[in-house]
């Protein structure tokens, strides 16, 4: 057993796992913080919606598409000056979080927009007829009704973030993906590769089943 895993430094694995979890947690927090309002604004200003704003929707939509069309590995490098400005460092976990957020927020916002579009227009009309303000319509009707869809969107986004963190090694952020590339691939340490891949797999499975459970819990249809 130990002979097979003789290249594996379990303490390094532990640190890498922590790095991955920190990057995931930190970037997920900010992605939801920025992506949810952005998704709501995209939804409201879209053509034929409550606050149709062709110009605003066009601009937001364009930026979202630009960010989404950049490969994450490029975004990571292009954003270095901005990252420095925000976190004071372009290295490590802190240096990885801004590009992770920038990469995942447009993706998440689009998914939120789609989830909100699934809400029955009749429900919005009924809420308007009750005399609700726009803010009340968003918080009392739209978001509660779209909750299962938004949770599903968060799950997909979290899993996408896990795969993005694998590239964060480029800026020295560490994490399981970085370990897999530097040791598993570049030094032909197959055992390290196997351990990191299994750990990533477990992480993704956990995220997916947690998300699915929450969706079922909040679905009343």
């Amino acid at each position, binding site marked *: 057993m130990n002979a097979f895993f003789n290249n594996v430094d379990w303490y390094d694995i532990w640190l890498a796992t922590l790095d991955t979890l920190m990057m995931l947690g930190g970037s997920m927090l900010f992605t939801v913080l920025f992506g949810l309002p952005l998704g709501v604004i995209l939804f409201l200003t879209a053509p034929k919606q409550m606050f149709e704003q062709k110009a605003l929707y066009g601009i937001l939509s364009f930026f979202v598409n630009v960010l989404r069309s950049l490969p994450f590995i490029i975004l990571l490098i292009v954003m270095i000056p901005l990252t420095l400005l925000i976190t004071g460092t372009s290295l490590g976990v802190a240096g990885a979080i801004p590009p992770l957020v920038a990469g995942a927020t447009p993706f998440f916002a689009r998914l939120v927009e789609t989830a909100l579009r699934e809400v*029955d227009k*009749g*429900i919005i*009309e*009924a*809420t*308007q*007829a*009750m*005399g*609700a*303000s726009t803010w*009340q319509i968003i918080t*009392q*009707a739209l978001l*509660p*009704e779209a*909750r299962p869809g938004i949770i599903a969107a968060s799950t997909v986004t979290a899993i996408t973030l896990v795969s993005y963190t694998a590239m964060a090694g480029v800026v020295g952020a560490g994490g399981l993906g970085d370990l897999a590339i530097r040791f598993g691939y570049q030094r032909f340490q197959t055992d390290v590769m196997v351990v990191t891949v299994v750990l990533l797999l477990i992480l993704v499975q956990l995220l997916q089943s947690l998300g699915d459970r929450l969706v079922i819990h*909040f679905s*009343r*249809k």
Partner: protein
Amino acid sequence: MIQFKHVHKAYKVGGREITALEPCDLQIPEGQIFGLIGHSGAGKSTLLRLINRLEEPTSGSIIVKDQDITALDAAALRRFRQGVGMIFQHFNLLSSKTVADNVAMPLKLANELSKTQIKERVHQLLERVGLTDHAQKYPAQLSGGQKQRVGIARALSTSPSILLCDEATSALDPQTTGQVLQLLNEINRELNLTIVLITHEMDVIRRICDQVAVMDAGRIVEQGTVSEVFLHPQHPTTRRFVYEDEHLDEQEQLKRFSQIAGCIIKLTFQGESTYSPLLGEVARQCGVDYSILNGRIDYIRDTPYGQLTLSLIGGNTVAALDAFRAADVTVEILRP
């Protein structure tokens, strides 16, 4: 009272202007059940939504209780809407909230009552619509009729003076439709609530409305009390609705009559005369024989009415017609 003064509504679709409602004047008296009937696309849904400004009029003014609602700003409009309930064909309940929370929603939005007061009011409303046992269920667990009753309880929660019904029974089976209409009828009387409803079924109008307006292609083509419009329809659209309700085809019927002898007439009885033994009396006095070709005895809201199509043979037909008219029966000669 709701009053439309020259209200006009047009949409712009790809640069072209499409009229949804031709300039329209309308008065809906307080405490009445007012029906709007028309085929889909006739503009009835637009007209209904103008009353709580879910649709903005292109021109004209809408006066509700001496207040021009077209002049209200956003905040005043929200307060106004809290005094106007609305129910929908597809119920439009929030699937993420329980029955009790759905009913409480307008009260929470209005933010005028305390939590305990809201709870009390919700209980009272659910009791009224007979759904106390289902308070903690979600809409998906209810039948269509139950969902609509939740919709009604929700619409009544802020004690509105007007209730707008958008095809409220069109998605329900006949038995459930009857129960929901019955409930609307009861709350109209109990609360002196003005109800404006739209439908494409003459049966709904006949069963609960006091007044009706018939719409066709964005215009009100006929309007009056239900008995006037229902028993003596003038406009072709109205006639079609009435015949549909009786499962009759006007042309088809005339064709069938061609093989029947005698003078063919249609008698319309209303109120007490519906149950008087008039046919036998007139037949004996004037020596005419009659055969009944078609007939219906029913109610318009609470007033009984009867419509009989007869062929009169032999005797003094002219005297018979006069005798019917003298008894306050409307006589229509279909074929002399």
